[in-house]
């Protein structure tokens, strides 16, 4: 599994995170490391650095991990999580400036094809859904 870039989906809503992951799985099956998380530490709409760290770990790939987020808080918490990673992992995790659902499907499809982390990120950031 470690020959593909991993994908992490971080939404304020656990439902959005799960649903987006379902859509990703439908496109790429189990060949891309994938993890998702949503909801704040109290179970409300929000995000949690702790569960983001766990998701990065679940989707870990030596080729790196691309994170897809929805709104500002998800982005800030994801960036915070990246800084809390062991140093040798930090440089291999990026937050994509891309729509969470469409970006996750795009990024995963690109990862599936064996692309590098940078290519995966660029694809998610470039394309809007056709």
């Amino acid at each position, binding site marked *: 599994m470690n020959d593909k870039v991993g994908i992490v989906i971080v939404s304020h809503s656990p439902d959005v995170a799960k649903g987006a992951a379902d*859509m990703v799985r*439908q*496109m790429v099956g189990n060949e891309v490391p994938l993890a998702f998380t949503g909801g704040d530490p109290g179970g409300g709409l929000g995000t949690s650095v702790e569960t983001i760290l766990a998701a990065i770990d679940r989707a870990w790939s030596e080729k790196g991990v691309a994170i897809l987020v929805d709104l500002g808080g998800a982005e800030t918490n994801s960036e915070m999580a990246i800084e809390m990673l062991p140093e040798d992992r930090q440089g291999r995790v990026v937050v994509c400036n891309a729509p969470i659902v469409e970006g996750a499907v795009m990024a995963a499809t690109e990862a599936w*094809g064996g692309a590098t982390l940078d290519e995966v990120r660029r694809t998610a950031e470039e394309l809007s859904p*056709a």
Partner: protein
Amino acid sequence: MTTTLDAAGRRALIETAAAAVIARADELTALDQAIGDGDHGLNMKRGFEAVLADLDAIAAKPLPEGLKQIGTTMVMKVGGASGPLYGTLFLQLGKSLAELAPDAVPSRAELAAALKAAIVAVKARGKSEVGQKTLLDVLAPVQAALAGGADAAALTACAHEAAAATVPLKAIRGRASFLGDRSIGHMDPGARSSEILISTLAAIAGGNSGAAA
């Protein structure tokens, strides 16, 4: 070819075409798994099963009305992008043939004109053109062959070749476009379902002299 197409004839036509697609559902799904989300067979099966569920009512109507009902059923039941696309195809075929005399068999010219208009409508619905690795890449050459006088066997061969010719294309529309260059080397699922429909209809029209490949 007979000179009338009555309810029994329409029934046989629709039933055979629907059954042919339903029988190929697994193959269509497998094609969609390679370059899409793996549901094209399921989608087409759901649509045509809904058509079969209304078969008597559809066959009882004049051909243009029956085609419109098939179109509406595909629109409502398929669920994928192929639903509104095939739905639009059948709806426009029905609209274009509106002047057909009851139980008449449309002429080659009428059919070619109707299919031409339907292709225009599908293009508008999908914001797509020929050459983008979609069902249009089968429909368009078949329409041209039909207009040019091709017989049933030639139409079947044309559809078969056109579907095969989608293999080297890069997808520009639909989910397969997400794969970019990696969509190359696979047959488009919608092109294949169009081929199945056309070759089945051609076989019936040609007195079962051809068969769906």
